[in-house]
C-alpha cells in the first residue's frame, strides 16, 4: 500500500493506482474528459491537471501513478485557472453550440465540466471554420464540429471491440478522427457496434434514433440482458412513455462489460412489425377479434390430451416460461412432440456428448476474454454472437494468434493468421491432422497415441490442407498457454467431429466454447426441448412464438396442422395462418431467467410496460391456458434446469 494526501486528506492505495483513481476512491472529484474507466488512460484533454509537491508543472491525474508520500492538491487557484484555460482552448478549437446540440443540458461531459468551473462564457471565440459532418452511417452520425479529440471512440474501437476502424489523421489543429484511411464511416470497416457513441463525451458521435428524444434525466433506465443471442450481454434500456429510446451496454455486466453488437444496440430500435393487441379467433374462415376467455376456450376445445398436440416454443423465452411450457404440454397434455423452434440444432449434440462423457466439457466466455490464442471452428463471429468475436479481435492486437477453420469463406478469414479451408465433409480429417501436427511439434499437452507424421500426412491428403499449413496453424495455436476454441455446434453435426474437437482441445490444452443459438437455447436443452420437430397425426399445434420472426421452414412445417394456436407479440405469416392468436408481451415487456451459452443464469428485467391492456406475458398466457385446461404445472424451474448434464457447468 502507498500513502498519499489529496487536499490534506490522507489516502491509502495499492501500487499502480493513478492519482485520479486515488482521488475517486477518496470521493474527491477531479473533472475529466478523455478519461474513461474502461479505457487505457490517455492524458489528452489535460482537464485533470493537479498540483503535486516536488513537480515543477501541473500533472495529469489520469496518467500519473501514485508514489509513496505524494502530496496532491486539486483545489488551488493554479489548478482552477488551468482547468478554465483548458476548457477555453477546447471550446475555441472547434464549433460548440449548446443551444442546438442534443446532449446539451445534462448529457454532455464538456458542458458539465464548464458548469463545474462556473464558466459563463468562452473567453476565446469558436473556430468558425466549418468542419464536416459524416452522416454516411445508417445508425450514427459523426459531427466533427463537436469533436474534442479525446480519442475515447478510437480507444473503444480498438481496446474494447478490436475493430480498429477509427483513428486520427494529421496532427495539431489539423488532427481529425477518421475511419480507416479516411473514408466515410458508412463505407468503412466499421462493425456498427456503436460502442464509440456510448463513450463519446460530447455530441460528436450521436445515434440517429435517440437524438433529441430526451436527456438521460428524462428517460427511464432499466438494466437487463439482451436476448438477441446466447451470449447474454448486459444492457441498459433507456425508454420514455413506453418507447425504447436507446440501448447501451451495461458497463457492470459480467459477460460483456459494456460492449454490445449492432444487433443488441440497434435492432430493437428499428423493429417496425405490427403489434398484436387483442386475441384473435378464426370464425367463418377469418380471424376475428375476441376476448381472452373466448380465445382460451376456443384453443382449449381443440387441445386434447393423449399426444394430440404438437408444441413449439421460442428460445427467446425465459426459463420459467420454458419450464411451464414443457410441463403443460409434455406432462399435462401427454404430448410426445414438445420442442423448441430451434429443435435443439445448436445444443442437442452437445447435450448428448456431455451425457456420454458424464461431465461438462466446455469453458466459459471468461476463458475467451483471457485467452492468448484462438481457433474459430465453423462459427460466424461477424454476423452472430458478435461480442465473442470482439473478445477475440481485441486480444489479437496484443499478439494472440487466430486460426480459422471453415469449409467455406469465413468472415474472419482476412484477419486470421492461418485460415484453413478443408474440403466439405472433411472437417474431421482436418481436426485429426491438426491434433497430429501439434503432437509432431511436441506442443501436445496430453499424450498422443499413434504415428503423428503418418496421421498428419493422411489428414492433409484427405482434407486438402497442406501439412505445412497444419504445422503452422498447430504451432501458432498450441504454443500459447491459454488457447481457446470457439465453435458453433449447429454446423458440426456429428459426434465424431465433436469428439475430434474435444481431442484437439485436450492435446492443445485449449478450452472449448460453443455458441448456442438463441438466448435460452441451453435452458431449452436442459428441459429437453431439443427434438427435431415433426407433425405426425397431431390434431393441433401450439406455438409460443413470442417476439420471434417465424422462419419459412416453420410456416411450411405447420401448414398441415389441422388446428393452430399461436402465442405471439407481432403479426406474421404464422399468426395469419393460425386459428387462435393470443397477444403476448415482447422481450422487453416481461421478465424471467436466461441461461447463457456459458452456463450463467441471469435475470432479464421488465423494462417497458406491456403494449396494451389485453396483452399478457408469455408465462401468464400459458398459465391462463393451463387453468382453462384444468392442469396444474408442478416442479421447480431452477432445480429442473440442473437435472440434465450440461455441456458447460451451470452457475445457478
Amino acid at each position: 500500500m502507498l500513502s498519499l494526501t489529496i487536499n490534506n486528506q490522507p489516502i491509502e492505495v495499492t501500487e499502480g493506482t493513478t492519482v485520479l483513481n486515488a482521488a475517486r476512491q477518496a470521493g474527491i472529484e477531479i473533472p475529466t474528459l478523455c478519461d474513461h474507466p474502461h479505457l487505457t488512460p490517455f492524458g489528452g484533454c489535460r482537464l485533470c491537471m493537479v498540483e503535486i509537491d516536488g513537480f515543477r508543472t501541473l500533472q495529469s491525474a489520469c496518467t500519473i501513478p501514485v508514489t509513496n508520500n505524494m502530496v496532491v492538491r486539486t483545489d488551488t487557484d493554479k489548478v482552477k485557472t488551468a482547468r478554465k484555460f483548458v476548457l477555453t482552448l477546447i471550446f475555441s478549437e472547434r464549433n460548440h453550440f449548446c443551444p442546438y446540440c442534443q446532449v446539451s443540458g445534462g448529457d454532455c461531459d464538456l458542458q458539465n465540466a464548464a458548469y463545474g468551473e462556473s464558466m459563463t462564457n468562452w473567453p476565446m471565440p469558436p473556430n468558425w471554420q466549418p468542419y464536416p459532418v459524416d452522416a454516411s452511417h445508417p445508425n450514427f452520425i459523426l459531427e466533427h464540429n463537436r469533436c474534442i479529440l479525446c480519442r475515447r471512440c478510437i480507444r473503444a474501437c480498438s481496446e474494447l471491440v478490436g475493430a480498429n476502424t477509427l483513428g486520427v489523421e494529421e496532427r495539431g489543429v489539423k488532427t481529425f478522427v477518421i475511419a480507416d484511411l479516411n473514408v466515410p464511416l458508412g463505407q468503412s470497416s466499421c462493425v456498427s457496434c456503436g460502442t464509440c457513441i456510448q463513450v463519446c463525451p460530447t455530441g460528436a458521435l450521436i445515434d440517429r434514433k435517440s437524438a433529441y428524444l430526451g436527456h438521460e434525466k428524462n428517460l427511464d433506465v432499466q438494466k437487463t440482458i439482451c436476448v438477441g443471442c446466447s451470449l447474454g450481454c448486459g444492457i441498459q434500456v433507456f425508454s420514455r412513455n413506453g418507447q425504447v429510446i436507446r440501448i447501451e451496454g451495461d458497463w457492470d455486466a459480467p459477460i460483456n462489460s459494456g460492449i454490445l453488437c449492432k444487433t443488441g444496440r440497434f435492432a430493437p430500435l428499428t423493429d417496425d412489425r405490427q403489434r398484436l393487441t387483442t386475441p384473435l379467433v378464426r370464425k367463418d374462415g377469418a380471424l376475428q377479434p375476441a376476448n381472452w376467455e373466448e380465445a382460451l376456450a376456443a384453443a382449449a376445445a381443440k387441445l386434447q390430451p393423449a399426444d394430440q398436440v404438437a408444441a413449439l416454443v421460442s428460445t427467446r423465452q425465459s426459463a420459467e416460461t420454458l419450464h411451464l411450457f414443457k410441463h403443460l404440454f409434455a406432462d399435462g397434455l401427454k404430448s410426445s412432440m414438445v420442442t423448441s423452434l430451434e429443435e435443439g440444432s445448436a445444443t442437442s449434440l452437445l447435450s448428448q456428448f456431455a451425457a456420454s462423457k458424464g461431465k461438462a466439457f466446455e469453458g466459459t466466455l471468461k476463458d475467451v476474454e483471457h485467452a492468448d490464442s484462438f481457433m474459430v471452428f465453423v462459427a460466424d463471429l461477424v454476423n452472430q454472437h458478435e461480442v465473442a468475436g470482439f473478445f477475440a479481435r481485441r486480444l489479437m492486437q496484443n499478439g494472440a494468434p487466430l486460426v480459422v477453420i471453415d469449409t467455406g469463406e469465413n468472415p474472419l478469414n482476412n484477419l486470421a493468421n492461418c485460415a484453413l479451408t478443408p474440403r466439405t465433409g472433411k472437417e474431421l480429417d482436418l481436426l485429426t491432422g491438426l491434433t497430429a501436427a501439434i503432437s509432431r511439434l511436441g506442443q501436445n499437452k496430453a499424450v498422443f497415441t499413434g504415428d503423428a507424421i503418418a496421421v498428419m500426412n493422411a489428414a492433409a491428403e484427405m482434407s486438402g490442407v497442406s501439412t505445412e499449413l497444419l504445422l503452422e496453424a498447430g504451432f501458432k495455436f498450441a504454443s500459447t498457454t491459454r488457447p481457446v476454441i470457439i465453435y458453433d455446434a449447429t454446423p458440426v453435426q456429428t459426434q465424431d467431429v465433436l469428439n475430434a474437437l474435444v481431442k484437439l482441445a485436450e492435446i492443445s490444452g485449449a478450452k472449448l466454447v460453443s455458441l448456442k443459438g438463441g438466448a435460452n437455447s441451453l435452458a431449452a436443452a436442459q428441459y429437453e426441448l431439443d427434438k427435431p420437430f415433426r407433425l405426425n397425426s397431431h390434431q393441433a399445434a401450439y406455438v409460443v412464438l413470442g417476439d420471434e420472426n417465424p422462419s419459412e421452414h416453420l410456416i411450411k412445417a405447420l401448414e398441415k396442422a389441422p388446428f393452430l394456436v399461436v402465442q405471439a407479440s407481432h403479426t406474421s405469416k404464422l399468426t395469419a395462418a393460425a386459428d387462435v392468436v393470443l397477444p403476448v408481451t415482447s422481450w422487453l415487456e416481461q421478465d424471467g431467467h436466461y441461461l447463457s451459452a456459458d452456463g450463467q443464469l441471469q435475470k432479464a428485467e421488465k423494462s417497458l410496460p406491456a403494449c396494451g391492456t389485453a396483452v399478457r406475458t408469455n408465462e401468464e398466457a400459458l398459465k391462463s391456458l393451463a387453468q382453462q385446461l384444468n392442469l396444474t404445472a408442478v416442479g421447480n424451474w431452477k432445480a429442473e434446469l440442473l437435472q440434465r448434464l450440461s455441456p458447460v457447468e451451470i452457475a445457478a
Partner: protein
Amino acid sequence: MTKPKVASDWLAGCAGCHMSLLDIDERIVTLVQVADLRATPITDLKEPDETGVAVGILEGAVNNSANEEVAHRMRSRCSILVALGDCAVFGGVPAMRNFFPLEEALRRAYVETESTDETGKIPDSPELATMTRARSLQEVVPVDIFVPGCPPSADTIFYVLSELAQGRKPVLKDEKLSWI
C-alpha cells in the same frame, strides 16, 4: 441614495431574452424600487442616457454595422455591460450562418426560401447596414457580466439585476448557470 440607472437594447436576437425579463412578473415592481429602468426596446425611451447609465444590457449577437454601432454606444454610456442570453454571450443561433458564406446565407433568406416567388432579391440599398459575420458581444466590445441561457430564466435575470442594482456582482453558478 439615487437609484442606479439601467438601460437595455437588442441586437441580432429574437427578443426572447427581453420576454424572459418580463417573465419576472410582479417582481418588476421590486426591481423599479431599487433601479431606474431607462431606455429599453420595450419602453418609450429608445437610447441610453447620454449622461450614462450604471448598467447596460445587450441581447443578441453582433451581425452587422448597425449592431456594432448600438454595441459601441451602449458600451460608451454604461459602467457595467451585461451580455444577456446565448446570442450575446456565444453568438447563439444567428452564428449558425457563419458556417456559410454571407452571400449564400442572404440568397437563401431572400431568394431561395420556399415562400419567395421569382421576384425575390437580396436588398442592396446603400442605407442598409453592412452585414458581417455573427459575433458574440465580447468579440466587439469588452463585456463585464455574462448571463448565458436561451433564454436565461426569469429567476436568473431577476437575480442578476437585483444584485447589480444593489451594487453587487452577480455570481452565476450551480442551478443559476445554464447555457440552454
